[in-house]
């Protein structure tokens, strides 16, 4: 003890360790935003729900992604400062959910969707930062003829801001949670759930089933309740027949057979995987014929040059049936609405082009279609490759089109294949050729058709390329469509998207060898499944959206301060 007394610094060290330990416990405790289940705050009958979990964690994954690394090499300081600005704007300290609660009537009795945003912040401080920056921005935006009313509802401070012309908005806060909506009634419905007066979305069985596909690690989760959507559409009163026509269209398309749709977005191996699942075990209407469309053979990818920027390949084997089903549906809907029907539209098309769309085009279609963007010496060229059942019918249709429109047709030979050109009113018209039972068409004079012919005659094709194989290695099942993008221009597009938030990003001249994006979709007995793997998915848009709004708000505050 005496020894301890002689060493007072030991007490100091012990005190410092205790303080540091307490501080570490406080800071290291998982914040609310890191473990959100925001469906707890929304009513069980919500139509749609999109949640973004812990935006800061998502932003960190963006920083570590392959695309952002490449982007940072090209935009050194700007990319870091962009992220830091977003970080200090206060918007990253939260998880967000946007829900469509249904349709309500405004003051004049007009139906309008009721949307509520729920944000759960890490703490009250983060919530106040958000309020100060975003809500003040929203308020300032609507100044002039704006009235504000405050009331207490279920223990929350509810503020209703009314704008005579635009309807206004309402918001409420409890602890670290903020509710913001275009309708006070929607905020009240959400507050009722919180108070335990109404069941929450997490008790919705359809939602719970969709939620099982979502894990905490995933950044974005979206959900659409098919039954609730059908209910809202069916309950919408019809004033001028428009709503009734839409209702018929909705049911005719078979959209009422959709039980639920869900969407998830997550980072995997430095890229973003997005999955869209439609649950519709009992398909009907047009949806049934789309589901019955057989998978694509991806045989047309053998005609696309290996260095193509992008390609979309889809099965159209069931196109005639789908076309007929849609035609019948539109005929019913237009008849009901007393407007021109699809038969009239097809007749107009024939009168303008000389082509019978149903007889010349739809019936000539084969099993597959491919749209590709090719790399050319002086830029890029888009090419359409259409598999044909009846090559002669298609050739006749094109000849009819040229004749009807008095366009000159020229021919040239390229490696034993006849390439025709239909002169255009403007530009170089259209080049086309028939290669291996497929129609190949592109803008005239750009050389796209010739590149396809080169590929067909032994050139390196996208379908056989290692890049495409590696990119599509995660594909499961037999897809009805496949989309490929080389991402050669991705960084420029990203720069263009993020530009204008106080940082200058390059939007041209950036070259990087990112892994290609691939998306595919297929029909399953229980519905539809679409999956995409891309550099950053929807996240840049999300971040740009949040930070641009906050950045603007912050700049306004700075100016006001000056």
């Amino acid at each position, binding site marked *: 003890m005496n020894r301890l007394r002689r060493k007072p610094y030991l007490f100091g060290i012990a005190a410092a360790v205790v303080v540091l330990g307490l501080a570490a416990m406080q*800071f290291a405790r998982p914040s609310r935003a890191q473990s959100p289940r925001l469906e707890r705050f929304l009513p069980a009958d919500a139509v749609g729900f999109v949640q973004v979990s812990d935006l800061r964690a998502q*932003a*960190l994954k963006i920083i570590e992604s392959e695309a*952002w690394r490449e982007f940072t090499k090209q935009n050194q300081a700007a990319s870091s400062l962009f*992220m830091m600005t977003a970080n200090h704007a206060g918007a990253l300290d939260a998880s967000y959910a946007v829900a469509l609660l249904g349709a309500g009537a405004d003051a004049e009795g007009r139906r309008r969707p009721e949307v509520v945003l729920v944000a759960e912040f890490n703490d009250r401080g983060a919530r106040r930062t958000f309020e100060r920056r975003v809500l003040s921005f929203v308020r300032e935006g609507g100044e002039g003829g704006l009235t504000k009313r405050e009331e207490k509802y279920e223990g929350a401070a509810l503020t209703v801001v009314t704008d005579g012309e635009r309807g206004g908005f309402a918001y409420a806060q409890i602890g670290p949670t903020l509710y913001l909506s275009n309708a006070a009634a929607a905020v009240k419905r959400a507050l009722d759930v919180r108070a335990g007066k109404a069941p929450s979305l997490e008790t919705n069985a359809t939602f719970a089933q969709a939620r099982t596909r979502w894990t905490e690690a995933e950044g974005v989760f979206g959900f659409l309740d098919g039954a609730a959507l059908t209910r809202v559409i069916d309950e919408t009163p019809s004033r001028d027949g428009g709503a009734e026509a839409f209702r018929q269209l909705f049911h005719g398309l078979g959209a009422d057979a959709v039980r639920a749709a869900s969407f998830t977005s997550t980072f995997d191996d430095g890229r973003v995987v997005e999955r869209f699942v439609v649950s519709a075990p009992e398909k009907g209407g047009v949806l049934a014929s789309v589901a019955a469309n057989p998978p694509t053979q991806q045989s047309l990818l053998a005609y696309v040059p290996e260095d193509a920027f992008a390609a979309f390949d889809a099965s159209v084997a069931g196109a005639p049936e789908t076309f007929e089903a849609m035609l019948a549906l539109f005929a019913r809907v237009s008849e009901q609405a007393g407007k021109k029907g699809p038969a009239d539209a097809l007749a107009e098309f024939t009168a303008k082009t000389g082509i019978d769309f149903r007889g010349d085009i739809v019936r000539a279609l084969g099993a597959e279609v491919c749209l590709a963007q090719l790399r050319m010496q002086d830029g890029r060229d888009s090419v359409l490759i259409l598999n044909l059942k009846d090559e002669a019918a298609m050739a006749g249709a094109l000849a009819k089109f040229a004749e009807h429109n008095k366009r000159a047709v020229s021919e040239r030979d390229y490696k034993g294949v006849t390439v025709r050109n239909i002169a255009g009113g403007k530009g170089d018209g259209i080049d086309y050729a028939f290669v291996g039972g497929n129609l190949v068409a592109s803008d005239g004079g750009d050389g796209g058709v010739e590149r396809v012919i080169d590929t067909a005659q032994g050139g390196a094709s996208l379908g056989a390329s290692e890049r495409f194989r590696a990119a599509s290695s995660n594909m499961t099942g037999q897809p009805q469509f496949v989309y490929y993008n080389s991402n050669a221009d991705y960084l420029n597009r990203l720069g263009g998207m993020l530009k204008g938030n106080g940082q200058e990003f390059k939007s041209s001249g950036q070259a990087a060898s990112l892994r290609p994006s691939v998306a595919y979709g297929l029909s399953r007995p229980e519905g539809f499944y679409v999956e995409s793997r891309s550099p950053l998915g929807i996240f840049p848009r999300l971040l740009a959206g949040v930070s641009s709004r906050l950045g603007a708000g912050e700049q306004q505050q700075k100016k006001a301060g000056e």
Partner: protein
Amino acid sequence: MNREILKAMFWKEWRETRWKWLAFAFAFHLPLLFVGLSVALRDEWRFDLLAMSDGVTAMALGFAVVVQSIFLITAGLFLLAFFAVGSVGAELENQSIFFLLERPVRRWQVLLFKYGVGAVQATTCVGLSILSTVTVVYVVMAAAATNVTLAGSREAFSYALMNGARGTVWTAFIALVVYSATFLFSVLFEKWWIAVIAGGISIAGMFYYFGAMLFEWIINRATRNTGDDEVNLDLYGQLDPVPMLLMLAASAALYLAAQYAFARKEMR
């Protein structure tokens, strides 16, 4: 005084003060500790670190140089007073100095060794903390931030080190003056707390009269007319021989005053 006695006295001073010196060397990195804790415990700070790239390395290192310099010429000088205050007074108070004076050494030699070892410790402790801070910040950034690469940021690091070296020189000179003044108080006052108060008052006085000049010499030129959060390290701590020589002269005068007081000190 023979060579053995010289070595023994140097060894004695070093042994007695080495842990204190290390503790103060650590204390002179308090800003680094604060930032380190914030990065470890706060999401926002950690995010900023992880969001860094080669393009902002120079900016971050420039910021580190300036923050550490500000700490050194403000709070750091008070820390220095604590460091220097025990140089002589403590040994006078607990009368351990008599063991030393019993050896075949003169009084002025005892004080010269104490001053010499203490002055070297103080100036290195203060001056090098700028370079060590920059190095630690750089290593942490390179290790933690995905987009900070050694190849892309090496130049920024050497640029910060080279320019930071001027701050090292400046702060070493300032530290020498403060150390010398507190050393004098340590000779004059046997009670350490009186010497601390005297040292504190004199540092406060120095700030009152010369504070603005200290900032001007070391920091202001580098931060003036630059954008928000930007530092122009080329203009940081531009060396100026006149104030440096004056500080050296002041330190020498304070040391001689300490010798004068120590020689006439009545020790019981």
